[in-house]
């Protein structure tokens, strides 16, 4: 309970408040009676009636105002208690500056309430206590972080997971553990707690930690947030549960895919080689001209197959966080023109035409040529696939946006995307709907494109109307901006990892 002095003070304040108002009311009624009887020479009963009537109205108005004032301390106390309740309630903390009555008492009580609810700052004192001994021996990693994300406590298992040769207490958590999340990151969640909560808890199933220089590890992570206003005291307690056996088994998938890809590539190399031989023969006239189209179709098919094989390999790498891109400074106009030229045969064979529009004066961009070519190829392939025979136009345009990004749009006038598919468009294997045209495809192209564009610090989006066509657009960064953000300066190369996960780092939030 607050100091006895506060209670006395509050009592004195309320007493003064009530006495003053009572005296004022009394004087007011007397004055009002005298005024009314002077102005209107009514008989006393009439005058009394009029004064009573006026006073009743005033009393109601004033009474309501006073009730609000008197209840305010209680209201703020209730607000504080609701604010600290473990179940999330959308209530802001009380603004104690607005209090006049009993300010010190209520402020003190509110602080006590927060103190009981928070109870932070215990973990770093735990060593040597019976609880501490148990924590040291748990096969679960337990760590405490302060408000600056520095480690206040780590049990031996947690230290083992860090792969750090030195003691980790006092170090920045995020520089020891590079964590990847599928949903909201730890850093974002803690920031949310800072503004909205006094206590909170969250459980993440299946996160990846890449202790620097070591193999990827898989965990479940539980975090408990307790707001503390004191520096260096534990604010977040993190518990990690080793799930390497459960989730780590997925890694074997990559070696299988790598093996499969190698086996697929040999016959593919041979096919492409002999198709080229036939093309030479067509040119030299030893094959009937009407077969020339067939040979072209074989070439396009073999190119599609090669692209698909690359796609599955890249997707497998992305899942394992092993696809590394090296971004270089490139002239986007040249690169895009070349990519579209390479796709000419593919589009012609399908009876489509590409119209390319490049805005003049574009800045140089930071890109990995091969990845961007894959993205554009995927988008064009989709446009071709989803355009019926009578819709032959595909428009590609690129320009500088007002935010200073280079945006490229691939537009078709075909079938468009059904509304129920839209939210899942960039997910793996999202193509599980069958429209009446029975279009085949892997469902990987957009997933891959999104991971690649994200690795370029860009955005990819879609605008579509069923029956009218679709626009797929993506942005890439001008090289000047990219190198400024990466602070790579003299070193003309920027390395990025492409993956389908969200990095727990402010750099990844663009």
């Amino acid at each position, binding site marked *: 309970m607050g100091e006895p002095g506060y209670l006395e003070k509050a009592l004195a304040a309320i007493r003064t408040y009530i006495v003053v108002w009572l005296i004022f009311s009394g004087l007011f009624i007397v004055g009002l009676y005298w005024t009314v009887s002077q102005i209107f020479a009514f008989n006393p009963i009439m005058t009394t009636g009029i004064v009573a009537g006026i006073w009743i109205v005033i009393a109601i108005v004033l009474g309501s105002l006073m009730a609000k004032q008197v209840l305010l301390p209680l209201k703020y106390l209730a607000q504080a208690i609701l604010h600290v309740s473990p179940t999330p309630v959308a209530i802001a903390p009380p603004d104690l500056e607005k209090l006049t009555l009993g300010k010190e008492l209520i402020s003190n009580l509110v602080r006590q309430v927060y103190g009981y609810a928070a109870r932070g700052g215990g973990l770093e004192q735990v060593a040597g206590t019976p609880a501490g001994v148990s924590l040291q021996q748990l096969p679960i990693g337990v760590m405490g972080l302060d408000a600056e994300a520095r480690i206040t406590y780590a049990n031996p298992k947690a230290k083992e997971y860090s792969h750090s040769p030195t003691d980790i207490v006092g170090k920045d958590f995020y520089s020891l553990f590079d964590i990847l999340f599928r949903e909201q990151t730890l850093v974002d969640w803690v920031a949310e707690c800072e503004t909205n909560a006094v206590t909170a808890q969250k459980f993440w199933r299946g996160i990846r930690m890449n202790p620097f220089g070591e193999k990827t590890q898989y965990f479940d992570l539980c975090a408990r947030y307790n707001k503390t206003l004191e520096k260096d005291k534990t604010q977040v307690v993190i518990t990690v549960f080793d799930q390497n056996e459960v989730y780590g088994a997925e890694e074997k998938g990559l070696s299988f895919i790598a093996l499969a890809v190698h086996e697929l590539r040999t016959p593919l*190399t*041979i096919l*492409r080689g002999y198709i080229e*031989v036939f093309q030479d023969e067509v040119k030299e006239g030893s094959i009937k001209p009407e077969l020339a189209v067939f040979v072209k179709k074989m070439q396009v098919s073999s190119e599609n197959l090669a692209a698909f094989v690359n796609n599955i390999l890249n997707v497998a790498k992305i899942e394992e966080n*092993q696809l*590394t891109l090296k971004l270089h400074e490139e002239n986007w106009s040249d690169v895009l023109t070349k990519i579209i030229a390479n796709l000419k045969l593919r589009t012609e064979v399908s009876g489509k035409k590409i119209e390319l529009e490049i805005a003049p004066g574009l800045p140089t961009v930071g890109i990995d040529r091969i990845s961007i070519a894959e993205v554009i190829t995927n988008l064009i392939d989709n446009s071709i696939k989803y355009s019926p025979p009578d819709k032959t136009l595909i428009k590609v345009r690129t320009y500088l946006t007002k935010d200073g990004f280079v945006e490229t749009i691939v537009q078709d006038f075909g079938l468009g995307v059904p509304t129920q598919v839209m939210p899942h468009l960039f997910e793996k294997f999202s193509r599980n709907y069958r429209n009446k045209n029975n279009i085949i495809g892997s469902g990987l192209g957009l997933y891959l494109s999104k991971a690649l564009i994200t690795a370029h610090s860009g955005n990819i989006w879609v605008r579509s109307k069923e029956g009218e066509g679709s626009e797929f657009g993506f942005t890439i960064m001008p090289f000047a901006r990219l190198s400024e953000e990466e602070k790579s300066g003299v070193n003309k190369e920027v390395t990025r990892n492409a993956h389908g996960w969200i990095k727990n780092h402010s750099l990844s939030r663009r």
Partner: protein
Amino acid sequence: MTTISAEPIRVLCVEDEEFIGELYKRALNREGYDVDVIADGAEGLEKAKSNLYDIVLLDIMIPGMLGMDVLTELRKVTPKLKAKIIITTNLEQNDEARQAVESMADAYIIKAEITPRQLVEFLNKLDLN
């Protein structure tokens, strides 16, 4: 071609896939290159050591002696080799392994990604001096 010489450019192709070797030889011959195709790593190494070739196309996965070992041995034993060594493969290597190979060779090509004609165009652009 970048060299103006009366003699054709000599290529050693170490490749165990018969059809691929055949395709490369055909495409290169049409462009005037002289091509020897060897299917075994150890034999390929011996031929390369003779230093009679301008270009060596070396597959990583070959019987007899792995491409990587041929490369290491060749660099060790014939440091003044005049030939440009082009590694060819359909294997997907991780960055580390690939960089180790690329650092000892002059180029690295994934076979499934180029046609024989594209290979020829690539070799045409090589500086063989």
